[in-house]
């Protein structure tokens, strides 16, 4: 033992050097504020105050901040995921229990939470990369605003988790999540759709529930763990009353399951998947579908690594990477939208139905710019009819196809549209209503709640009449032309509006 003195010294010094080196580095290096990979903001260094210290907030935020901004963080993360792959042997099917916490929120400090959703909205305008946001606003670049703009409303968090789970299967280069639907929820969904039909005489109400890909591809052994979605769809359809119609999406998707209808690394379907649903809808509505070949096909440049890759980082998912293709549905003459979940007194004109600048992990939001609260599409279809699509994010890829059959297509996101849907239907004289939900959403209590509360509007307000000139906001500078970032004052007035509506 006596002769090992130098070994002890080297050991002690090596350890000390590492902890001191990283310790100093962590204090000296500039701290990043956002993570591109995770599409969220990193925790900011908390300001010390006795109030936050005694509330045990300061130290907790400091720990979070420190871990979030640790030197070489992304390399360490990659190392940890690489190490995970040595834990065992890989079979044909791989199973992940994601360690990602259930409640995902972009990390924003409590003080900025109230304004985060609306302030980021202004930054998520098409092609905007407004870098000069005031410091109180969390969104400061395109990537972070992308994440913030899809911030789920606070009310959504809890009961989705009962059905959405973090168990992910990887099979033949694609990731699958299992859907565990329950019959009572299917009936509730059918009742809500039926109530739309009953309360909207003269309007055709359609429901479409988009099944999950595990139904079509995962080996039976694992598939059996979940709910058979054909049965699930048949069940809710059999409970529809008052003339509401169920679109047979499952069957059409199954027919086309050899095509590229779902992303392998993401939870969404592709434009081709949505096209299958469109074919099914045309059958229900009695339309002659436009063939896909007649539309111009475009592809988002670069690979698309979706959410399921982001959380599993499974190498099988990048061997055959996803891409996002979209089809230019002809006849679109004008696209207008608003971005603020608090609502807006005027619509902005958009250059197209597709956000063609979206790349990488954000590529799915190429379709109708992602989850905007409201979009109005005018077309040259000349049918004299108009449709309202009440959708979740699955509906984004589906919505463009409707342009071939309606003069006006209204698209609203059930989570974010603040105004009364019944008011909108009456005001715009809408003929058809399509309620499009992924099976997860259809089965989820919070989405069902949304569909109910939408009737009178999440904010309880009637939609403004956009055909009238917009009322001047108090300190109103002239609104900038369409694709420009919205000017600050408007965003802040909208923020007030949204917070006041949230208080109601």
């Amino acid at each position: 033992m006596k002769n090992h003195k130098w070994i002890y010294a080297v050991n002690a010094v090596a350890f000390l050097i590492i902890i001191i080196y990283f310790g100093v580095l962590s204090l000296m290096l500039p701290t990043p504020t956002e993570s591109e990979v995770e599409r969220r903001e990193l925790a900011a260094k908390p300001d010390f105050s006795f109030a936050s210290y005694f509330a045990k907030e300061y130290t907790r935020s400091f720990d979070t901040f420190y871990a979030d901004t640790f030197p070489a963080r992304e390399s360490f993360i990659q190392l940890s995921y690489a190490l995970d792959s040595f834990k065992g042997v890989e079979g044909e099917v791989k199973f992940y229990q994601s360690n990602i916490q259930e409640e995902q929120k972009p990390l924003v400090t409590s003080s900025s939470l109230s304004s985060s959703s609306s302030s980021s909205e202004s930054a998520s305008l098409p092609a905007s990369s407004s870098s000069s946001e005031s410091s109180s606003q969390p969104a400061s670049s395109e990537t972070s605003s992308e994440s913030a703009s899809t911030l789920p409303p606070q009310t959504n968090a809890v009961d989705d988790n009962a059905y959405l789970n973090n168990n992910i299967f990887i099979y033949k280069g694609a990731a699958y999540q299992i859907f565990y639907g329950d019959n009572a929820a299917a009936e509730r969904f059918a009742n809500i759709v039926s109530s739309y039909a009953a309360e909207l005489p003269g309007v055709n109400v359609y429901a479409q529930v988009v099944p999950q890909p595990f139904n079509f591809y995962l080996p039976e052994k694992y598939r059996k763990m979940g709910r058979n979605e054909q049965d699930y769809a048949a069940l809710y359809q059999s409970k529809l009353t008052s003339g509401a119609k169920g679109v047979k999406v499952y069957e059409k998707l199954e027919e086309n399951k050899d095509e590229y209808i779902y992303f392998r690394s993401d939870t969404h379907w592709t434009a081709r998947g949505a096209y299958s649903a469109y074919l099914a809808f045309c059958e229900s509505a009695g339309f002659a579908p436009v063939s896909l070949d007649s539309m111009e096909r475009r592809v988002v440049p670069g690979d698309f690594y979706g959410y399921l890759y982001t959380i599993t980082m499974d190498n099988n998912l990048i061997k055959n990477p996803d891409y996002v293709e979209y089809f230019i549905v002809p006849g679109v003459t004008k696209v207008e939208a608003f971005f603020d979940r608090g609502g807006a007194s005027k619509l902005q004109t958009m250059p197209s139905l597709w956000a063609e600048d979206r790349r990488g992990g954000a590529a799915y939001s190429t379709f109708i710019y992602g989850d905007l609260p409201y979009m109005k599409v005018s077309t040259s279809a000349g049918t004299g009819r108009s449709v309202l699509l009440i959708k979740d994010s699955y509906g984004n890829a589906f919505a463009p196809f409707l342009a071939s059959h309606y003069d006006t297509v209204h698209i609203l996101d059930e989570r974010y549209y603040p105004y009364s849907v019944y008011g909108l239907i009456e005001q715009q004289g809408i003929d058809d209503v399509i309620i499009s939900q992924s099976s997860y959403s259809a089965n989820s209590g919070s989405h069902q709640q949304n569909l109910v509360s939408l009737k009178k509007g999440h904010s309880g307000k009637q939609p403004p009449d956009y055909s009238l000139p917009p009322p001047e906001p108090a300190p109103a500078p002239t609104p900038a032309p369409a694709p420009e970032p919205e000017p600050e004052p408007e965003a802040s007035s909208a923020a007030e509006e949204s917070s006041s509506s949230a208080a109601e």
Partner: protein
Amino acid sequence: MVFSGLTFIYLFLPVNLILYYLSKNQTWRNTVLICLSLFFYAWGEPFCVLLLMFSTFLDYVNSLIIDRYRSHPLIPKLMVAVSVIVNLGILGIFKYSGLIVSSFNAVTGLAFPVPEIALPIGISFYTFQTLSYTIDIYRDEVPAQRNYFKLLLYVSMFHQLVAGPIVRYSHIANEIDHRQTNMAELSSGINRFVIGLAKKVIIANTCGQLATTYMGAPVGNLSTASAWFGLFVYSMQYYFDFSGYSDMAIGLGRMFGFHYFENFNYPFISRSVSEYWRRWHISLGSWFKDYLFYPLMMSQGLRKVGKAAKTRFGKRAGTMIPTVIALSVVWFATGMWHGASWNYVVWGLYFGLFIILEMLFLDKLLERLPRLLRHAYLIVVVMIGFGIFYFEDISGLLPFLGVLFGMGGHADPTIMLTIGSNIFFLIIAVLFCTPVMPWLRKWCIGKDAGCEAFIEMMHIPLNILLLVICTAYLVGQTYNPFMYFRF
């Protein structure tokens, strides 16, 4: 602050080591340790750091009084009683008032508001330390500490403050004033700390993820196999978490010249429940032995019970009956100590029952069994114990136990996938539940004494490797992609 946190490893620890080793004499070094220990505690407990200081002060004063009036027939008894009542009273208010009120409400049907008091970090541990100090002074086992700050150092020392081991004052009294630090100690402390860190971050956390999947799942989704698997990984998670923490505490102590007793001694290799409890959380077991079991056994009441039993039922009953009574009390208290929920009491009594049964006859029976079966007996008893420990609610436990023993349940094809994709990890984890490293070391040195230097040398790259891996996992935990897809 936790040892297995980046803030601790890369900010607190280096600052601590630098300040400590820059300080020249013991007084300054003790000052550094006290200040940083209080900072450490105040990091997590802004208010309760005062409670800790008060608690220490009370025992400091009481002990001085006991020491001063040692020959007085009443004062020492009174002071020790005050100390016990106040210490346990504080613990009771913070830890058990919610349980007491809600249980009272449940029994009487009344609806008193249930107080919601946050449990101060480490209060169960340091209360037992301050208590043991005063009782030791009362028993005249060690001279009372004249310097409040030195006693505060003993109580607040950040190594053991939060999660043990429950250090006795008598064990470190000498080291407070006279301790040696040298390279060998520092180096071995570092080795121990890094091993503890790896046990916690690499093994326990990974087991924890698996355990959450299978223990946290709705029982309807579990098969018998996956329920056992869940229990198995939960047991390992708990062991590696706790023993890793003790390793880190012991390692930290050594870095600063303190020697704490071992707290775990490979409990899962035991062949009986009594042996298991001599190897599991040793400092707690010996605390209950010295401050509850022995005093109970030596008390007038139980002696009388013993005498009476002896004259009525014979000699064996004369010893067994008081022992059974005392053990029941001890295991009730042990269960209670672990948490303010009745399942912990059930858990404590469950182990007490096995210890009593072993004492009465089971031991004799087990001795006739092959070793493998005795291990199997212990493992099953311990794992089911962990099931009781896990479910705070009996309505969660019973269905789970049902699935465990083949009632109900559901085919779960994921279990084989999970085992397959974690098989190497699981094998290594199980291996480290046994003293495989000490065996290996002994075997190497037995072959060639020169091996020792080599083993010491191997610690250097091993420490660096483990530290990097642990850092990767700790940073990896913060990887939290925004779930934009929530439809």
